[in-house]
C-alpha cells in the first residue's frame, strides 16, 4: 500500500506542451507513471509520445478516466488550471509551478474542498510511491520501495534525505513534497493521518522549515493521534528572523515559527529531531528497533 498514488493512478499533464512539462512528462513516463492524457488548449486531437492531447481537462477525464493531474503551466495561469482540474472531478491535483500568487491559492482552496479534490503544492517537487507512480519533478532513481513515509516542505533537501534512507536500506511507501509556499494544499496534518492509516508505512520522516506553525501543529497531532514513530528535521535553524511579516505575522502565529520552538514542540511529542540530515537513518532504525 501507499498513500495518494499507486499503480492505478492515471495522470493528466496540464501544460504538457511547455518546456518543463514536456521534459518531466518524459521522465515520469520513463519511471513508469501511467500518463493517460495531456491538456493543451487548441492542440486537442494530437499525440505526444503516444499520449493523447485534449483541449480541456473535462474531455481528458471523460475519455481516459484520469484521477490525478500535474500542473506545469506558468504561474499567472496556474490557479485557473487547478480550478479546471478540480471542476472536472480530478481527485488529486499536484502543482509544480512556482511563483503562483498567494491570493490565487487562497481563492482556489475552498473550491477544491467543495469538489473533493486534494491539492499538493504549488511550488512543490511532487510525490512518489516508489516502483508505482511518480508525479512531479522528483529524481526517481534515488527512491526505493519500503516502509517509510516522508513529508517535506523542501525539494533538494528531500532528495538528500531520501538518498541516505535508500543507501541505509530504508525504502519508502510514499514521499510527498508539500512545497514551501505560504499557503499550500495538503500539509503535515492530513498526510500524517494518511500515513497513520496506511498499513505498509511503519515510520514517518517529517522535514520542516522555519516559519508558520505547521510543525507545532504536527507535533500536537503526533502526540494525540499517532501510534507510528516519527523522526524530524527542521531546516533553517540559523536563518535570520528579519524576514518576518511585521506585527500581524507575529500575532497570527503567536509564539511559533522559530526552529527552537518547533524542535521543542516535536521533542514534547516524543519525536527525535536530527541535528543534521545524516542522523536521520540512525534515528529511524532506533525507533524501528533495527
Amino acid at each position, binding site marked *: 500500500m501507499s498513500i495518494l498514488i499507486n499503480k492505478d493512478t492515471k495522470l493528466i499533464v496540464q501544460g504538457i506542451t511547455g518546456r518543463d512539462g514536456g521534459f518531466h512528462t518524459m521522465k515520469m513516463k520513463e519511471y513508469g507513471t501511467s500518463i493517460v492524457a495531456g491538456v493543451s488548449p487548441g492542440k486537442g486531437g494530437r499525440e505526444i509520445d503516444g499520449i493523447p492531447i485534449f483541449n480541456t481537462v473535462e474531455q481528458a477525464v471523460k475519455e481516459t478516466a484520469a484521477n490525478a493531474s500535474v500542473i506545469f503551466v506558468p504561474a499567472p495561469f496556474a490557479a485557473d488550471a487547478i480550478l479546471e482540474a478540480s471542476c472536472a472531478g480530478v481527485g488529486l491535483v499536484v502543482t509544480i509551478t512556482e511563483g503562483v500568487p498567494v491570493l490565487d491559492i*487562497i481563492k482556489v482552496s475552498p473550491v477544491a474542498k467543495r469538489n473533493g479534490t486534494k491539492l499538493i503544492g504549488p511550488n512543490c517537487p511532487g510525490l512518489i510511491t516508489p516502483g508505482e507512480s511518480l508525479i512531479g519533478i522528483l529524481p526517481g532513481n534515488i527512491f526505493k520501495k519500503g516502509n517509510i513515509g516522508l513529508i517535506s516542505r*523542501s525539494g533538494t533537501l528531500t532528495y538528500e534525505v531520501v*538518498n541516505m534512507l535508500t543507501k541505509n536500506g530504508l525504502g519508502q511507501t510514499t514521499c510527498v513534497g508539500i512545497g514551501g509556499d505560504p499557503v499550500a494544499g495538503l500539509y503535515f496534518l492530513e498526510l500524517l493521518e494518511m500515513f497513520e492509516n496506511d498499513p505498509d508505512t511503519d515510520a514517518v520522516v517529517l522535514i520542516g522549515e522555519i516559519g508558520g506553525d505547521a510543525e507545532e501543529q504536527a507535533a500536537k497531532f503526533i502526540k494525540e493521534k499517532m501510534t507510528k514513530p516519527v523522526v524530524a528535521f527542521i531546516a*533553517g535553524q540559523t536563518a535570520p528572523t528579519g524576514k518576518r511579516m511585521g506585527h500581524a505575522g507575529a500575532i497570527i502565529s*503567536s509564539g511559533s515559527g522559530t526552529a527552537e520552538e518547533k524542535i521543542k514542540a516535536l521533542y514534547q511529542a516524543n519525536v527525535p529531531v536530527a541535528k543534521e540530515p545524516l542522523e536521520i537513518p540512525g534515528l529511524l532504525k532506533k525507533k524501528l528497533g533495527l
Partner: protein
Amino acid sequence: MKIHEYQARNLFRKYGIPVPDAVVCHSVEEVEKNVPDDGKLKVVKAQVHAGGRGKAGGVKLARTKAEVVENARQILGMDIKGLTVEKVMVADAVNIEKEFYVGLVNDRNSKSVTLMASAEGGVEIEEVAKVSPEKIIKLAIDPLLGLMDFQARAVALQLFGEIMQALAAAAIIKKLYKLYIDTDASLAEINPLVLTPEKEVWAIDGKMNFDDNALFRQPEILKMREVSANEQKEIDANEKGLSYIKLDGNIGCMVNGAGLAMTTMDMIKLYGGEPANFLDIGGSSNPKKVIEAMEILLSDKNVTAVMINIFGGITRCDDVARGLIAALGQIKTEIPIVVRLSGTNAKEGLELLKSTGLPTVNTMREAAQKAIELSKKSKV
C-alpha cells in the same frame, strides 16, 4: 515587497481611509520649504523599512515649525537597524482618546486572508497577542465571499460600543480589505486606528507588504519599490534565477535548492562556523549561472572560504561537475573552495572535478568541516 508608511498612507487615502495630512521630505531644506507653518501639532517620522522606529528615536512630536525642522535634522541620516533614514514624513498629529489595532494577513492555517482587530492598539500589540490572545479578535475571511458587511460591522461593534463610530470603523475595515485584495497584499495594518476626543476615527500609522509572486500583475505597486543596497543585490540575483540573502558570517555557500541551502547554513553553524549568505542556484547545471552566483558570493568582502553543496537529482552530478569546471576556470580567486557532490552520478562528477585540484567531499558534514578548516587558514 515592503513599502514605506507614507506610501501605505497614500494607498489608504486612495481607498477612502481617513489619514491626517502629511508631507514627505528628503532633506531639511525640503522640510523648511514644504511643511506648512500652521501652528498645528506635528509628528516627524523616519521612513525606513524597519520596525521599532519609535524606540530608535525615529519618531518625534513637534509643537512648532522650528521643532519640526530640528527633529527632521536629527532623524534624517539616522541609522535604524542598519538602514539609513533618507526620508521623513511630517504629519498632522491627532488627539487620541483611544488606540485600536486592525490588521489583515494571509494565514496559512485557515488558507484565507485573516482579519485581526483589538481594542488594545499601539506599539505593544505583539505583547498583547502573546500575553492576552483573547484580546485579539480573529476572523478568517471567506475568499469567495470576501469580507461581508455584517462581519466588518460585528468586529467594529466589539471595538467601538457606539454605533456611528462602529460604522465608521467597519467602513475603514471594508476599504482596507478591498485595498488588500486589489493589490495582492500579504499584510495590511492600521496601528493605531484612533478615536479622537471629537469621536472621529482616523488611521494614524499604516503598514503594507505585498506578495512578490503577484507583482507581475501589480505594476502600480511595483513602481513603489525602493530598495537598499543589500536588497538590490538580492533583487539582481533574483533576476538571474538566483536566490541570495547576505548574512554576517565568513563562509560563503552556493547550493541547489532552498531547503538544502538553509540546511547548509545550519551545518556550518553546527560545526562552529558562520555562514556568509544564503544562496540557492536552483536546478540548472548552466556554467553561466554558477559564474554569476560566484561573483555575487565573492563580492561580500567578509567571505574567507566557499562551500559548494550540490545534490544531483534530475540534473546529474556529472553535468553539474562540467558546469562547475567551466565556471571555476573563469573565476580567479585566492579564496579556498570546497565542493561537495552527491546523488545521481556523484562518483562520475567527483572524478571529473579532480582536474580542478579543488578539495572534493561526499557529504555535507565533511564539506562544512573542511570549509571551516580552510577559512581559519585562509586569512584572505
